[in-house]
Structure formats: C-alpha cells, structure tokens
C-alpha cells in the first residue's frame, strides 16, 4: 500500500462522509464531490478509476437534473463509493464488491487483471504454519501493538529503563513468534528494531518505530482478514538498520527474502463460494481439524519410525475420511489434495516407499496445507466470503504427485541406504558421484590447509569438491543429508496415544462453562451461608441437619466437578513443542531428539493457554544454546551424538510441575556471575548461592551469549519466562551442571480459579495469605524482635534474621494489636526469601475462588486479587511475592550490618 493509495483511501472516506450529508439540491456540495471523484479517477487505474469516472458522470447528471429521481441516484452513488472503498482500502477484486449496474465499468476492463493483484504481496506467509498457532498469535497482537505504542510514547518523553526493557521484550517475543509461524519479513524487521533499540536512544527512532508498529498492525490485520498485505518492510528495515553502525543482515536473512519472493505469486483463480449445507460443512470443519491434529501427532511418530504401520494407517485414515466428505461437500481443492496425500500414504503403508527426507517433508506440508484449506472453509462459513485460495497448492500438488511416483528427489531412495558413521566422501564415492581418486586429492589439499576439527573437515571436504568442480552442490547437500539421516538414532518418541480409546467429548462454549463455574461457586457460598446461619443452627431438628449435611455434600461434589470441567491435558501444548524442536533443530543444523512425558497431565485451561509462550522460549534456549552445535564436543563429553530435549509434566503436591530439560552444555556459572558483576547486578565479592546466580538469567536484557542469532541470545526470552510464570502464580527453578545439561522446573498452581488460603485478621479487616507461601506462624517473644533505626523491624527465628511487616501499617488498618508479643507473626516464603507478617489472629484456612479486582484496581501493591469469603463479602488476597520484593537485598544487608554493628 503506497502513500498515494493511503491518500486515495482518505479521499474516498471523505466522500463517503460528505455523501451522507449531501443533498441533491446542494449544488456546491455536489460540485465538490465531482471534483474529488475526478481526482480519484486520475490517481487510480483500472476498475477504481472507471468506477470513479462513472460516479463523476452520475454527479454531473444529478447537477444537471438529468436523472429521473435524484434520491435514488444519490443512493447509487453511495453504493459506488462503498465499492471504491472495498477496492482501494480492503483490496478486494472487482467481482467481490457490489457495484450498481450504472457505475459498473465496461466489460473490456473487467477482463484485465485488477490493479491490486499486480501489487506483489511482499509479506506472505511462507512455509508451514499451524493454523491454531497462527490464530492464537493474531488474536494476541492488537493488545501487543497497543502496548508497544504506549511504551514508545512513554519512552519518547522520558527514558524509563523498565519500559525500555518491556518494549524490547515485546519486540523480541514478536520476533520469536513470527519466526515460528513463518513471517520472515516481520521477524527481520523485529530483529533490526531490537538492534536499533540497543544502540540508539529510543527518542531518536520513535518515529520509525511507530511506523513499524503501524506496519505490523496492517500485516496482522491483513493476515486475519486474508486481505491485501501491505508493502514490504524493506524501507523500514533499511532505515532502522542504517542507524546501527554495522550491517546485521546475515546470509540467513537473504535466504528468507528469497522465500518471500517465491511465495508471492498472486492467486489467479476465480473465487469460489461454499455451496453445500452449512451444518454439514461446520461438522466437516470440526471433524477435519480433529483428524489433522491427530495426523500431526502420528506423523511425528512416523518421522522417527518410518515403518510404524499403526501411525501410517492413522494418517492415511485421516486423509481418506477428509477426501470422502470433501467430495460430497464439493470442495475440490481439499478433495484433490487429500487424494494425492492418500496415494502417497497408501504406498508408504504398503511398504512401496518409505516416508523419509523430502517425502516426509511433503507429507507434513500436506497436513499443514490441509489445515489451511479447512480453515478457509471455516472462515468462509462464518463470514460468507468466498473461499480463500492457497497459492502454494499447485506446487505442493505437483510435488506430491512426484512423490507418489517415487521421483521426488532422485537420490531420495538411496538416502536411507547409507550406513551410519560414514564420511561424506565415502558416501559420495559410493553413490558414484565422485571417484575415490578425486576425494583423495581433495583431502590432501585440505590437510595442507591446516588442522581442522573432524566435523569441520567433513563439511569442508564437500565444499572442496564443489569448488573443484568435481560435483554439484546439490549432490553434496543430498549426501550430507543422507549422512545426517544415518546418524539419527532409532525412534524414541514416547507417544502413548497410538492406540488410545476415543472418548466422546461434548463441545461447550467456554463462556457458558465459566458462567457455570461461577454459579457453582456462588452456590457453595450460599449453601454455607444458609447452613451456618445462627437462626438455623439454634433450632434445627435432626432431620433438618441431616438434609443440610446432604446438601453440603452435594454442593462440594458439584464444586469439584465444576473445577474439573476447566481442566485440559497439556498434550496439545506439548505437541506444538515437539514440532518446534523439530523445526528449530533443522534450522540450527543440530541433531536433537525430543521426548515428552506426562502429556495427559491436566491443568486449568487458562494456565495451559499461557504456558505455551514461556515453553517456547525455554525450548528455543535449550536447542539454540543448550545443545552443543558440534557433535564431537558431545562425544568428547561422553554423551550420545544426538542432543536430547525432554519435556515433562507431573503432579507434585497441590501443584503441577512442568520441566524442560536438555543434556547440553549447562549453564556457565562463572560467566553468568561475571556478567552479573559487569552489569552491576551483583557486587564484587558478594557471595551468591547457586540458585541466586542462576536466577540472574531471568533479569531483563541479561545474556552471556557473545553472538546474537535470530533465534535467541539477547537475554529477553528468560525475562518473558519469569514474567509469564509469575503471572500464573507459579515459580521457576533452575538446576544445571556444567557439561551435563540444564533443567528448568516450573511449578504451577493446579488452577487459577481457586486458592488455598489462610484467613488472617488485622484490626477489623480480613486478608487471605496463600497457604503455599505460609511456612508457619509464631507468637514472637520480645527479645526476638529488633527495631532498626526506628524504621523497620526484624524478627529473629532460629538464628536467622528476617524482615517483619505489620499488616496494619502496610495497609493502614485501624485498631490492630500494636504489641507484637500479643500478635501473631506469620512466616511467609517466596523464592527462598522469608519474611514475617504481623497479624492479630488466624481465622482459619479455606479454599476460595479467586476473582480479579478488575482493571481499575490492577497493580495495587501488596494485593494480588480478591476472593469471595464464606459470608459473601470480598476478602483481599495478599501478594506475598510483591511484599517480599519490597525488602530488596541491599536494604536487608543494611539492616543486618547495622544490627551486627550494635
């Protein structure tokens, strides 16, 4: 979309506004309209111009009173303007807009391609995109962009480090996600922007960054409406890149640009509308999505074990079913794709060919393509728009067809035949691509160039052969692939889903479910209010009491079921990670195995939805930084050549643990500590526990990586991890041993809806302390309490000094007990830090439903939310982590030193 286009759209919008107010008798207004229409005519081409011209002519006729009914003519004009808007702003084609007959351009024009279809779609989804991931991603973006804008404006005025960190976090996450879903252009832009933010004060580049935000907004809008993509971001990238001294555009980036241009063939085919029965179509969409989801899982099994009949059959069945129904519903694209894919899978399951290498890729692509096609149907079904087109479909069909014939890549069959551990030279020689002689010569030349590592030598040999002109690069690449394939271990993907019994789920609107859970919560409260009311308990008969206890039992059970309704298995999220590891390891050219356990573990849906983001960051870190890039290094350390990333979920106490483990390098404690000192986070000579050192990596902008790649290294990711997990009321722990690997342990509450809380009283107010963070409660003795310069208080328990808060002072409550020895000190702990909270008394323990205090009340220090108490009033939940953060380390140190000084 060019500047001219934008101007035009504005003009058309002006017209639309004026037209509403215009009166057929108002000659001056009409004359204005005439002028604007003529201007539009000159600035656009093809259809839009023709329509504008016809509009202008119509206005002229209205002015000259040549039309029979000027009111109808005005209405026609309105429609014409709407059509212009449709074409110019929304980028629709001529046949998609509703144009009144009088204003329709002549047929000759209609034949020519519309102007818009010639505009290259600079930003196009490339590669494979999971529809669910994409739609999740798109749904989140408006809020993200809003945040970005707010931060930019804030930073323009004053340089707040925390805002800057947040901005970087946003851009970094966006970069990562867009890389994952295949928006290279966006990824590149974010990458450049990150660089620029690091090097140039935000103030100077606010304009460009705001433009970038607008551009992103247009891209996401276009993606979600399947409308016209905006212009390429090259201009922005150049301007941003120009600000940073060195040019960061790596070869990887240029590859991506190629991908983009490849994928920019505009669709030529006619739009197609859905014809079949809507209910049937809707059913088809749901069913197909389930089948495809399943197919994805099974394909991953096939990937590691290409002979797995059961998995192959399952994928085959998925395509087969889709094909049948699609034919019935008149969806030719889907039908033919399913047909080809089915053919391929049929051959695979009859052992006529093996699904490896390119064959596997093409199968994966088919599943993804199918997902997109099904999504188009769903979209078209809900909006009534014509069916969306997939530009890459013909290409994919062609390759699928080749694959069925077994001719996808000539060498594909021989790939599987290569024995493990062979060198590239041997492989190539075996395949008759080069002679032994030539290899020997090349090797000789190579060793003359100086000593190299074993692996480097292998790659260099290929290079050498290519350089000498002995063999083409493609042949070497294929040989290398064969080599890599042969090194890959046997299938060890733990997937218990192969032959699980199919349970019949019922789909329920999430809102209704929430409402039900809310109501159950209300019922529980109402029930306890009734059964505990003094009037009732005073003169209740035995009979009544029995009934009441029965009622109590039923409501409890109802509550439990209500809570379990929201629980979903983490399987879907884990599967996305499996795919992520696969893609990342290919990208990084590393051999990485992925295992997952406990994917049936259930978590609250809202938690599952939010855990994806941090997991992505941790997995990326594990693959990119954790796993050694040089297999030789791994072997030298006594590990298997293939790296291992494990994702695990299990119950532990009242919470759920999710672990991300890799067997790579492990964290470098010394390097982290050095960096911490360098950044001023740690003071020289300060003694930090291992845990404290590892926790440094969660600091915003903390990174020990020397090189920033497009995957990670900026130290933003781990910051996101901690933020998100804290938002879920969870905790992260890091265990790592240098050379052995790293383990991230995330501990999450079972549900976000319920909290197990200790009800405490201070003065007349009641507060809830999360039981998880309560260690114990003691009645402090006089000698255990120290006042520090008359400001803070410290409590000495078991030889440790911890800060002591008075809840009444903190929350300015009247009438609380002032004599600490008459009060209770509740010892709370968060992330290894302890503090005492002085309250009047403990009222008991209860499970309460957590409620947000609403947007207007968010961000109140010391309060994390509200809970409905048994008497129906609202109790406030104390934010222990927030309170403890108040007592920052330096303050503590001061307290302690002043104490020991006494």
């Amino acid at each position, binding site marked *: 979309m060019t500047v001219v286009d934008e101007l035009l759209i504005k003009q058309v919008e002006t017209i639309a506004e004026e037209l509403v107010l215009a009166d057929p008798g108002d000659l001056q207004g009409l004359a204005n309209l005439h002028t604007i229409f003529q201007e539009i005519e000159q600035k656009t081409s093809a259809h839009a111009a023709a329509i504008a011209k016809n509009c202008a002519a119509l206005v002229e006729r209205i002015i000259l009173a040549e039309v029979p009914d000027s009111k109808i003519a005005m209405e026609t004009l309105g429609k014409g303007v709407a059509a212009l808007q449709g074409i110019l702003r929304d980028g629709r084609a001529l046949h998609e807009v509703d144009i009144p007959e009088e204003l329709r351009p002549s047929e000759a024009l209609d034949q020519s391609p519309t102007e818009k279809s010639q505009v290259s779609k600079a930003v196009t989804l490339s590669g494979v995109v999971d529809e669910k991931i994409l739609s999740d991603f798109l749904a989140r973006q408006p809020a993200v962009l809003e945040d970005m804008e707010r931060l930019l404006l804030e930073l323009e005025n004053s340089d707040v480090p925390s805002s800057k960190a947040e901005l970087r976090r946003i851009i970094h996450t966006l970069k990562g996600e867009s890389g994952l879903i295949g928006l290279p252009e966006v990824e590149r832009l974010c990458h450049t922007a990150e660089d620029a933010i690091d090097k140039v004060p935000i103030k100077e580049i606010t304009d460009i960054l705001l433009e970038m935000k607008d551009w992103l907004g247009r891209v996401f809008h276009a993606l979600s409406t399947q409308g016209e993509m905006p212009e390429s971001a090259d201009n922005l990238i150049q301007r941003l890149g120009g600000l940073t001294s060195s040019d960061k555009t790596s070869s990887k980036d240029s590859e991506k640009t190629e991908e983009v241009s490849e994928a920019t063939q505009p669709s030529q085919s006619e739009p197609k509308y859905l014809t079949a029965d809507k209910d049937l179509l809707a059913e088809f969409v749901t069913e197909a999505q389930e089948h495809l989801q399943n197919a994805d899982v099974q394909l991953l099994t096939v990937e590691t074990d290409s002979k797995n009949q059961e998995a192959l059959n399952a994928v085959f069945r998925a395509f087969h079913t889709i094909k049948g129904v699609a034919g019935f519903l008149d969806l030719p694209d889907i039908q033919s794709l399913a047909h080809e894919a089915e053919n391929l899978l049929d051959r695979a399951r009859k052992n006529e060919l093996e699904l490896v290498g390119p064959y596997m890729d093409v199968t994966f692509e088919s599943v993804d393509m199918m997902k997109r096609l099904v999504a188009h149907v769903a979209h078209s079904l809900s909006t009534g728009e014509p069916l969306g087109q997939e530009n890459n479909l013909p290409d994919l069909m062609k390759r699928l067809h080749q694959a069925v014939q077994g001719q996808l890549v000539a060498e594909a069959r021989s790939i599987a035949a290569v024995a493990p551990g062979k060198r590239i030279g041997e492989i190539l020689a075996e395949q008759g691509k080069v002679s032994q002689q030539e290899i020997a010569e090349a090797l000789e030349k190579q060793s003359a160039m100086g000593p190299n590592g074993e692996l480097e030598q292998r790659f260099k040999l290929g290079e050498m052969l290519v350089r000498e002109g002995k063999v083409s690069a493609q042949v070497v690449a294929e040989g290398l692939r064969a080599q890599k394939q042969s090194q890959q271990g046997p299938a060890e993907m733990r997937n218990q889903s192969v032959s699980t019994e199919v349970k019949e789920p019922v789909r329920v609107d999430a809102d209704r479910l929430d409402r039900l859970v809310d109501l159950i919560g209300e019922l529980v409260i109402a029930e306890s209010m009734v059964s505990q009311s003094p009037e009732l308990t005073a003169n209740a008969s035995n009979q009544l009491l029995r009934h009441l206890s029965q009622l109590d039992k039923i409501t409890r059970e109802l509550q439990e079921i209500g809570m379990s309704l929201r629980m979903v298995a983490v399987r879907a999220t884990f599967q996305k990670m499996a795919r992520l590891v696969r893609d990342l390891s290919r990208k990084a050219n590393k051999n990485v195995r992925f295992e997952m356990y406990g994917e049936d573990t259930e978590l609250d849906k809202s938690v599952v939805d939010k855990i994806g983001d941090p997991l992505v960051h941790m997995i990326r870190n594990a693959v990119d930084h954790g796993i050694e890039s040089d297999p030789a290094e791994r072997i030298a350390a006594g590990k298997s050549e293939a790296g291992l990333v494990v994702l695990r979920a299990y119950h532990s106490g009242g919470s759920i643990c999710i672990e991300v483990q890799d067997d790579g390098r492990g964290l470098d404690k010394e390097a982290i500590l050095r960096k911490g000192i360098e950044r001023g986070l740690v003071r020289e000579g300060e003694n930090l526990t291992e845990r404290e050192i590892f926790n440094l990596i969660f600091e915003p902008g903390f990174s020990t990586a020397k090189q920033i790649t497009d995957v990670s290294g900026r130290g933003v990711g781990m910051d996101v991890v901690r933020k998100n997990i804290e938002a879920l009321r969870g905790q992260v722990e890091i265990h790592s041993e240098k050379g052995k690997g790293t383990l991230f342990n995330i501990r999450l509450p079972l549900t976000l809806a319920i909290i197990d809380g200790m009800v405490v009283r201070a003065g007349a107010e009641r507060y809830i302390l999360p039981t998880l963070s309560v260690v114990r409660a003691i009645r402090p003795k006089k000698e255990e309490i120290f006042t520090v310069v008359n400001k803070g208080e410290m409590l000495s328990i078991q030889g440790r000094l911890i800060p002591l808060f008075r809840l009444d002072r903190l929350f300015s409550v009247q009438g609380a007990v002032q004599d600490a020895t008459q009060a209770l000190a509740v010892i709370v702990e968060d992330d290894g830090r302890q503090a005492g909270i002085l309250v009047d008394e403990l009222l008991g323990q209860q499970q309460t439903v957590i409620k947000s205090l*609403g947007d207007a009340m968010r961000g109140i220090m010391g309060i994390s939310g509200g809970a409905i108490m048994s008497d*129906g009033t609202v109790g406030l939940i104390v934010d222990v982590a927030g309170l403890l953060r108040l007592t920052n380390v330096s303050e503590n140190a001061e307290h302690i030193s002043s104490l020991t000084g006494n």
Partner: protein
Amino acid sequence: MPPNESSVSERVLSALEGQYLSFTLGSEVFGLPILSVQEIIGLMPVTRVPRTPDYVRGVINLRGKVIPVIDLRLKFGMKNEGDTPRTCIIVVQVKYDSQTIVMGFIVDEVSEVLEIGAEQIEPPPAFGDAVAVEFIVGMGKVGQKVIMLLDVARILSATELAETRQLSKEAMA
C-alpha cells in the same frame, strides 16, 4: 480533561437527549444516562482496598463478580456525611477503551428516571479551574429542578488506574 466550550455545540447537546436516572448527593441532583446503568442495589458491606484513593470505597461481591465501588461524594470533592438507609449503589456498565467496565457508585438517594429533551439541556457552566466540572456534560432543566448530566466514561477516566498506580508507587517510595 478541561471543559472545552467550543466542543459543546448544539449538536453535542442534542446527542445528550434521552432518559436519565436522577439521584442526589447532598442537595444537588445528578443524572446518569439510563443506558449505562445496569442496576441499583442497596448498600452492602464494602471491603476496603488499601493504597487506593480515598474516593474508592472498596470492592463488593456482585453475584460472584468483584466490582469496585466509588463514593461519588468524595469523588466530586463533597463531604462524606455518613451512610443513611437511603444510601445505595448504582451499578454502571460502560464501554471504555474497548472493554466493558462494571463499577458501583455510592449515592445518597436515587430518585426517578427522567426524560430530558434536547431543548431542556444547556452546556455545563465554566467555573474555571476552581470547580471540577469535567464529569458534567450538560445541565438539564426539568420543572424547577436543574439536573447535572454526567458522563460515566469521563468519571471512569478520571478515576483511572494511573492514579491508583501512582499512589501505590508513592507508598513504596
């Protein structure tokens, strides 16, 4: 948001036409557009929330939903003279910044729903900075009474998080 006379043209005033729920604070009568009123409930125990501006009375449980309640007297800079049996909470629902916000206003007494025509509405007075009239969008004349017509969104925007946040930051400092 300072009152901007020029923006209060005839057209804006005619847009104010409609039904208003009138209520009193002391001797003054105010009106809330009926469409933004969700319900009227009696005063119930309000949980005080620490570190909020004084006009935020606290939060209540409205059938399972926690909503903040604002003491309109304090909000408008009037004295709080204690609750009476007639004191009640008007629950308003308003779209603000693309989200729907539900909030309670504590008022002295709710009177009636009035139909106010465009010809009965006049622009709000300009007292300069001395009197905060930014929530008042117009003055309705019904019989002998003058009703100050309120804009809920403006009350909300002035009651906003920013202020709450700032306060908690100050407390931390």
